[in-house]
């Protein structure tokens, strides 16, 4: 061990001699109170409005606080920096900020910090991947036209009243809009972001409980507790070290060897041992993720009359219970609607909305498919990328289940696609003429987020091009409701249409699974299956 330290020191001294940055070598005693956690290389630059995947989102959740925050347990949106968000007509909102918030570099968080950040995010020139989150704000079509260059630099719907107040005008009524504001894309940004963008990207500065200490892209990020953090969710540990792992098996091995404290993605190969290995230090709880099989409703074969029976029949032919048990060791839960239990009742989850159509019944499935005129061309193919997520395994299982129910070995075959990128291409170009996998991870814990972007006519992620005027009307009405309960009721009615028409088969809800070492305690996952780092205690 001593030899190892000496060698490492030598390498550090050498690299320090070559480049001035000796970060990561100094202070070997800084390990006390630090949570060592597994991480994946974020796909994009770490900007709030440019981060749309879990790994980058993890960091943003540590270094940023927005107007609202989702309760780590219930998922309910609660005011964070917002003192109040008022509206009289569900379309014009007045936002008042709490006093006393600053960024970790000392700059005050004002209404301008938000408005500037949002304008930056929405402007097409800045190529922010989450720009479409601002499409509800008035003037979005000017700063982000679907083609050509922007005719305005700022959103006309955003007006700064004073340091602590600004107003937002939406282009349509959207009663639950304030509850979406906990999403990272809506975070405030300090002046430093705009003044020296490159430097900010190297070492992001935010207003959350942690500050970035060092960031070596592709290998590690060290975060330290920000002592001056004004919020009441201060970090209970002295810092977090995020280590990039190329393979979650290695992360798990490191956890077993005591080199790592927290793994937030248990490799599927270890699921059968994990309870023995970790005991109650294994977490398996619902996350806001659902997997579905989407039908290409743009293909005439799938929309002719009677096909809704076939689609429902296929759904009934899938033995969800068995697949989630045997392949996923209960880290998936059979779906009974199109949302997620992580929403909770208040967010709009209601179990069983899919009804019989999501209950395995081989005989009824066969009957339904026959009544509907049989499978188009006598057989179907299921398409998914197979590079990650053990998709190949469950696709085979689903096909088996369908083949068994229909008593035909060739009724269903799998069409594996090598890479996620290729798969996304085929989907977005509407090249598939048979059902394909679609995973959806919620952005904010509201039923709206599970229905509108996916099934509303011409919605952004409506890959199957499902269109139903009745469904659209119900969603519009739900968005105009004053109370969330009333909105939820309308959304449930909309879900019943999905159950009847079955444009997408709900397969299962995905759980977050994590494991941790004996060194740390109070580990929880939030509804987005991201560890709540600031609550973790060390020692």
């Amino acid at each position, binding site marked *: 061990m001593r030899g*190892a330290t000496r*060698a*490492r020191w*030598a*390498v*550090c001294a050498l690299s320090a001699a070559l480049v001035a940055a000796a970060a*990561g*070598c100094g202070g070997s005693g800084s390990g006390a109170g630090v949570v060592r956690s597994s991480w994946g*290389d*974020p*796909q*994009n*630059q770490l900007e709030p409005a440019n981060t*749309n*995947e879990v790994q980058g989102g993890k960091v943003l959740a540590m270094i940023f606080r927005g107007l609202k925050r989702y309760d780590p347990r219930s998922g309910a949106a609660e005011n964070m920096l917002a003192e109040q968000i008022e509206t009289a007509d569900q379309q014009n909102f007045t936002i008042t900020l709490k006093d006393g918030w600053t960024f970790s570099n000392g700059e005050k968080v004002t209404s301008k910090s938000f408005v500037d950040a949002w304008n930056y995010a929405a402007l*097409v*020139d800045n*190529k*922010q*991947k989450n*720009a*479409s989150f601002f499409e509800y704000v008035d003037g979005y079509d000017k700063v*982000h*036209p*679907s*083609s050509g260059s922007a005719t305005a630099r700022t959103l006309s719907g955003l007006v700064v009243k004073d340091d602590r107040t600004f107003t937002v005008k939406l282009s349509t009524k959207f009663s639950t809009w304030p509850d979406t504001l906990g999403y990272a894309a809506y975070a405030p940004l300090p002046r430093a972001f705009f003044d020296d963008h490159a430097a900010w*990207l190297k070492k992001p500065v935010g207003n959350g409980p942690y500050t970035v200490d060092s960031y*070596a*892209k*592709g*290998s*590690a990020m060290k975060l330290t507790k920000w002592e001056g953090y004004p919020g009441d969710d201060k970090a209970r540990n002295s810092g977090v070290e995020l280590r*990039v*792992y*190329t*393979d979650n*098996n*290695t*992360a798990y*091995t*490191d956890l*077993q*060897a005591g*080199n790592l404290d927290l793994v937030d993605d248990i490799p599927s190969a270890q699921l059968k041992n994990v309870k023995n290995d970790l005991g109650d230090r294994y977490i398996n709880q619902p996350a806001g993720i659902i997997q579905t099989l989407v039908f290409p409703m743009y293909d005439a074969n799938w929309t002719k009359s009677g096909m809704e029976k076939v689609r429902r029949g296929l759904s009934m032919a899938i033995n969800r219970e068995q697949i989630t048990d045997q392949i996923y060791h209960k880290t998936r839960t059979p779906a009974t609607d199109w949302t997620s239990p992580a929403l909770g009742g208040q967010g709009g989850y209601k179990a069983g909305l899919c009804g019989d159509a999501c209950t395995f019944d081989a005989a009824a499935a066969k009957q339904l498919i026959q009544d509907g005129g049989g499978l188009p061309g006598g057989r179907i193919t299921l398409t998914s990328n197979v590079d*990650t997520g053990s998709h190949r395994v469950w696709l085979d299982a689903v096909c088996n289940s369908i083949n068994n129910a229909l008593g035909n070995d060739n009724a269903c075959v799998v069409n594996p696609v*090598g*890479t*996620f*990128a*290729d798969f*996304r*291409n*085929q*989907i*977005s170009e509407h090249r598939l003429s048979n059902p394909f996998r679609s995973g*959806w*991870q919620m952005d904010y814990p509201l039923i709206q987020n599970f229905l509108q972007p996916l099934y509303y006519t011409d919605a*952004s*992620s*409506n890959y199957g091009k499902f269109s139903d005027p009745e469904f659209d009307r119900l969603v519009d009405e739900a968005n105009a409701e004053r109370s969330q309960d009333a909105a939820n009721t309308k959304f449930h009615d909309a879900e019943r249409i999905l159950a009847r028409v079955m444009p997408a088969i709900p397969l299962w809800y995905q759980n977050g699974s994590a494991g941790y070492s004996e060194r740390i305690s109070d580990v929880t996952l939030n509804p987005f299956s991201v560890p709540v780092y600031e609550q973790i205690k060390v020692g």
Partner: protein
Amino acid sequence: MGRYVVRRLLQMVPVFIGSTFLIFFMVYALGDPVAALFGDKAPDPATAARIRQELYLDEPLWKQYAHYMGQILSGDFGTAFNGQPVTELMADAFPVTLRLTLVAILFEIVIGITLGVLSGLRRGRSADTTVLLLTLIVVSIPTFVSGYVLQYLFGVKWGIVSPSVSPEAPFDELLLPGIVLALTSLAYVTRLSRTSIAENSRADYVRTAVAKGLPRRRVVTRHLLRNSLIPVVTFIGTDIGALMGGAIVTERIFNIHGVGFQLYQGILRQNSPTVVGFVTILVIVFLLANLFVDLLYAVLDPRIRYA
């Protein structure tokens, strides 16, 4: 000799252009990478168009390639999606993989040739049979199996080494991954040198050397080994390139952030600048290693001389 080297170096140019174009074409054929950047969400058309424009993806293939080659010649290998210049990725990844390859090659040379010589000199005896059996076993075990097993035994069960390698990847942490990476090639080196030694030990010049009354040690090292090493050197030379490119599995298992890791990420995310850039460098390494091997021939066997 000098003219030979120059000719060889010039020959690399078409190979270089051809291979980069092939890789470029293959990555391009995988489709548009921008769609995947948006995850499960549909790409917003305006943003996606801007990103495509920035990455030159909206141009026809030959223009993309011309633009890319122009960039490369001025030392710019493009940018990965996370905003990092590919040259920066290379500066991080290549030294790590180079160290890993070095460790592996050293194991190959030291253990492989020693075992080969020993068993070659004791042809047909029990030591020879044991070595042959062992190498057979090693060759038949896939790298990921030996990798995970050794990692578990040494890293978790016995706690002798850390199961994963730190980002700085110092030599002492690379010993275990180096052995895993070297194992298969090591077995080949053993077998190659054994056969070669066994064959040459009956050669006339060895008999002459023995007849002259030279000490056995000198016969083996100066006469026998020098001639027998030619096929082994050929193998090790080509293996340098193969090890660097083929470290994907080993690097994944031991969490080494080297070339294999970057290539894997690049392919997974369909990031053509990363993939093409890294493979281009690997192609150059491969070509140079081959040249080096050819030059070594002349040193090992004076009869082989290049005009």
